[in-house]
Structure formats: C-alpha cells, structure tokens
C-alpha cells in the first residue's frame, strides 16, 4: 500500500521478567483497512493491543499514530489522539445506567467535563447523541437499566457502543463477540462491517472465529510466541508455509478450532 499508514509499530517489544510476550513486532496499518490479528492463546495478541493503547509500557520499540511517536503518552492522551479500544473482558461502569455509560464517552469528547455548575439534564444534545448510538447497537430500550443487571450479550454490545461513541481513527476490538449467543453476535459484526464500509477508519480485530475473519478481514497478521509469524491477504496467510510450520502442520484453522 502506498498511502502512509495511520498506525504503525516498530520493533515493539515487551518483556515480563525473562518472558518475551511481544517480540519486535513491526507492522503498519492503513486507513480503511480491517486487519484481523490471530494466533493461539498466549500468543501476545491482547498484550500487543495493550502496548498500542498504552495500558502497558513497551520495553523497546515505538508506536506511531499518524507519524507521531505516541510511546510516551498516557492511555487517556492516546485515546484523545485517536486510539479507541473495546476490551476482551467487559470493562464498563457497572453501577451507572446504560445511557450514562455512553453519555460519559460523548461528554468526554465534548470538552464540557469540567463544567461543575450546569445540570446534566441541561445537556440534551449529549443525551441525544448517546441515544442515537444505543439505537444502533439495539440497546435503546435498556437505556435506563443499570449495567450490572444487563445480560452478558448486552454488556458486550455496550462495550462496542462505547467504542463507537468514541469514534476514534483507530478502532481496536478484542474478541468483540466472545461469549455472545448466535443471534446476538450479528448485531456487533454488522456494526463492524458498517465501520469498515466507511473506508476511513483503521480497524484492528482480535478474533478466533474463522467465518468472521473470512467475511470481514482485508488482511490477517499471525502472532506466534509474541512474534509476527505471517502477514498478508486472508487466503494467502491461511495457506502459507510459515503458518503451516508454526502450527506444526495442523494449519491455522486446526489451531483456531481448538481455542
């Protein structure tokens, strides 16, 4: 690809004691591209995400967003710069309502959060935006429910809703449909497809389900023992020798079927 990448990592590495969890991963991600990140459990996928969004400091290597080195920035600064993340384990504000959860994200972007004197109810525009997003993820009816009382599937949807409310340049989904029922998962997958069709967002997706990867991914990267084992179009990667070898002849699908 000739366009300059939105996000890139350069020799990105993290060690925990003697264990190298992410090993010198160099990779570029362009706008409008959906990259699936695959690999067996413990391959370093979520850790790689943590390094990009800033939850864990890197031991070595650098992360660039739109050409700017963001390695020294805090999580919140990276978020404001354009890196948004939905978490693998649901990570919400449990005792606030569904609407309040999304409104907090909308409010964070509005720059009105140091307003100490006006009532929240006066900011109807923020509520309207939050409700529009809840309609998209089919959670509008549950908007007044407290999050901790929500079903697992609906919590997963809300997790995605928060990311959509943030609308960052880089979307990072960490197994967005994990634990969702067969009829709930399509809502989330359709949303990701919608984002992809906008063609101006960079999407990173950690996913185990092969059918999802096949329909959505423009590109697959394979992490194995923390290192980048393969990178390319889906068909090519799935057939590649590296992958076949890395997984001891069982092939990618065989390994993924186990997890």
């Amino acid at each position, binding site marked *: 690809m000739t366009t300059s990448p939105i996000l890139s990592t350069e020799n990105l590495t993290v060690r925990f004691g003697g264990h190298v969890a992410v090993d010198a991963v160099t990779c570029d991600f362009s706008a409008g591209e959906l990259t699936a990140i695959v690999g067996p459990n413990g391959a370093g996928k979520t850790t790689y995400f943590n390094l990009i969004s800033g939850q864990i400091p890197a031991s070595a290597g650098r992360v660039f967003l739109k050409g700017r080195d963001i390695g020294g920035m805090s999580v919140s600064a990276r978020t404001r710069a354009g890196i948004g993340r939905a978490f693998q384990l649901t990570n919400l*504000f449990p005792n606030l309502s569904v609407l309040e959860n999304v409104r907090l994200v909308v*409010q964070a972007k509005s720059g009105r959060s140091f307003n100490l004197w006006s*009532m929240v109810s006066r900011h109807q525009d923020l509520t309207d935006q939050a409700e529009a997003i809840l309609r998209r993820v089919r959670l509008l009816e549950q908007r007044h429910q407290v999050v901790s009382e929500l079903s697992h599937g609906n919590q997963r949807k809300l997790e995605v809703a928060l990311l959509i409310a943030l609308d960052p340049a880089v979307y990072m989904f960490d197994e967005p449909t994990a634990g969702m029922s067969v009829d709930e998962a399509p809502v989330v997958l359709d949303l990701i497809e919608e984002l992809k069709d906008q063609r101006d967002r960079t999407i990173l997706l950690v996913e185990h389900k092969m059918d999802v990867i096949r329909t959505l991914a423009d590109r697959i990267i394979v992490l194995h023992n923390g290192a980048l084992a393969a990178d390319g179009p889906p068909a090519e990667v799935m057939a590649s020798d590296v992958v076949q070898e890395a997984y001891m002849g069982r092939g990618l699908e065989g390994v993924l079927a186990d997890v």
Partner: protein
Amino acid sequence: MIRSLLSGDTPRSLPLALLLGGILICLALAPFLFPGVRTVDTAARICVFIVLVASYDLLLGYGGIVSFAHTMFFGIGAYGVALASTHMGRGFDAIAFGAVAGALLAAALALVIGLFSLRVRAIFFAMITLAVASAVAVLVSQLSGLTGGEDGLTFKTPRELGPAFKFGKEAFDGTLFGVKLNGKLLAYYFVFLGALVLFLGLLRVVNSPFGRVLQAIRENDFRAEAIGYRVVYYRVAATCLSAAIAALAGSLYAVWLRYVGPDTSLSMEIMIDILLMVVIGGMGTMYGAVIGATLFVLAQNYLQNLMGAAAELTSALPLLPELLNADRWLLWLGVLFILSVYFFPTGIVGRLRNSG
C-alpha cells in the same frame, strides 16, 4: 423550581422525601420549635456537619477517594475566621476574609497533596493525608503564640451576631412566639442559610457533567482513562473543591461557637465521626449526609439523656438499669453503628430509595 434547586436530584422515595422535609423544617425553625441554648446549639452543629459530611461524600462517595485530612481543612476554615477576627477586629469583613482565605489555603494544600499522591495510587493519598493532618494538628498545638495551642482561641464576632444585640423592640416587643429576638438568633440563621447554600451548591456539583465523571472514575478508573479522561485532574479538582467546602463549614462553625480549638475542629475523633456519618447516611448520595449527620449529632447529644431516663424507668428490674446506665452511651452508639451497617449496607438513603 424545587427540581432546579435540587439540581434534578430529587429524593425519589416518599419516606426519604418526608424525612428530609422534616429535617429541613426542624432546622429552619429550630429556635422557635425547640427553644433552649442546648437544642439550638445542637441544631447549628447539625447544619455545620451536614455540609462537612456532604463535602466528604463528594470525595469518598463520588470520587472514591479516602482522605483523613478532612478535619484539617475544616480546622483551617475555623482558624481562618478566628485569626482574622482576632487581628482585624470583630466585623463581617473579618469573617468574610477569614473564610475566603481559609478556603483558598485549604484548596491550595489539597492541590499540593493531590498532585503529589493521586498520581500514584488512591491509597497513597489516604496515607499522605493522615500524615499531613497529624503534622498540622501538632503544629497548631505547638504554635501557641498564634493559635492559642491546646486552649484554642476565643474571639469576638460582629455585635449583630451576639446575644447582647436586641432588635424588633418596637414592632414585636423584642420577642416572636416567645423567642427573644437577639443576635444569637441571627447567628443561628447565618449558620443555617450558609449551610443550606453550600449544600445546594454541592448537590449541583455532583449532578453536573463533572460529577458524572467523578462517578465514572469511582466505578472504573481504568476505563475512564481509556475513554479519554485525565483521571488525576478530576481527582485533584474534587479534592480541592471538597477541601474548600469543608473549610467554609469550619468557618460557619467558628462563627457559631466564637471559639476555635483543636478539640472542636481538628481532632481525629471528628474525622472518625465524619466517616461514620457518611456510612450511616449512605455513600454516594448527598442526602445521606443530611440523614447521617442529623442522626449522629442527635445521638451524640441526647443518647446519654435518653439512656439515663430509660435506666430510671427500669430501675426496679435486674441488670437492665446497669446496661442502660448513661455512662455506657458510647457502647450503645457503637452497637447502633454496627447494626446500621449490618442492616443498611448502602446506608439509610440507599435503603429507603430501594424500598420506595
């Protein structure tokens, strides 16, 4: 109108609304409903502690930050008014200057403590506040030339707030419903209205966009960061605001007592009382402060009398009068506290809201 005064945060439960309304009416009319030096003094104490506890709840219940320096900020406000009144002479200008200076100093101190410790971890903050509060308490008792040491400072408030000041002689013959119209009455309303304004202000803050961010941080600071909030800034801002309001509550208390000393405004005992009041009333709701402070101060002042009376009534029975002996009131206060935490883990307000 009422909704707007309460910042849209209505009690949402009929028993709670009735209880709060009852407390408001009793406090508003305390000098007329319960005339007497001791009762009015208790009412003024309740007013001050409602604000003090509410400001602590902004920190603990909304921000999820544990602080042990709240009485220090309370004391800074109280000593501010006392020192200003001593050195500038009695007058409302001295009160205003002392209160504002105390609030600013409290906020500045909170800013320094917050920036140093909230960056790291919230638990670190609790330990630093404990250390600073102890240091300040020692300092105040040692600098006796300035602060009066352990004896504290007695000072003069404006004449209009003293018992010697009489008014309404022509119109009401100096009394209204049998209550003498004097400066002490005005002083009570000074404290009551000051507390009311501060409380409604706090209610506004917790229902503002800023208040929502604090709740989000309390719920999940990790995610609050990940949706773009600089968590430290909000925590520090909440700490400063809470410190300033506590200082203003201290100023009100000093005006009422016309005295400051380590026991009335700085001691660790008051800090523990505040914690108990927050927990009994209910954390994370400003109305919890009203209920917690009212119940606790009433119990502190009247449980002893009540038990004395009960001991006399049961004097014919074995064991009971011993148990109910007025000297054992602290024991029963402790029992009441344990029971209230056991039966109302979300505080009285949480309990009333859930059942209603």
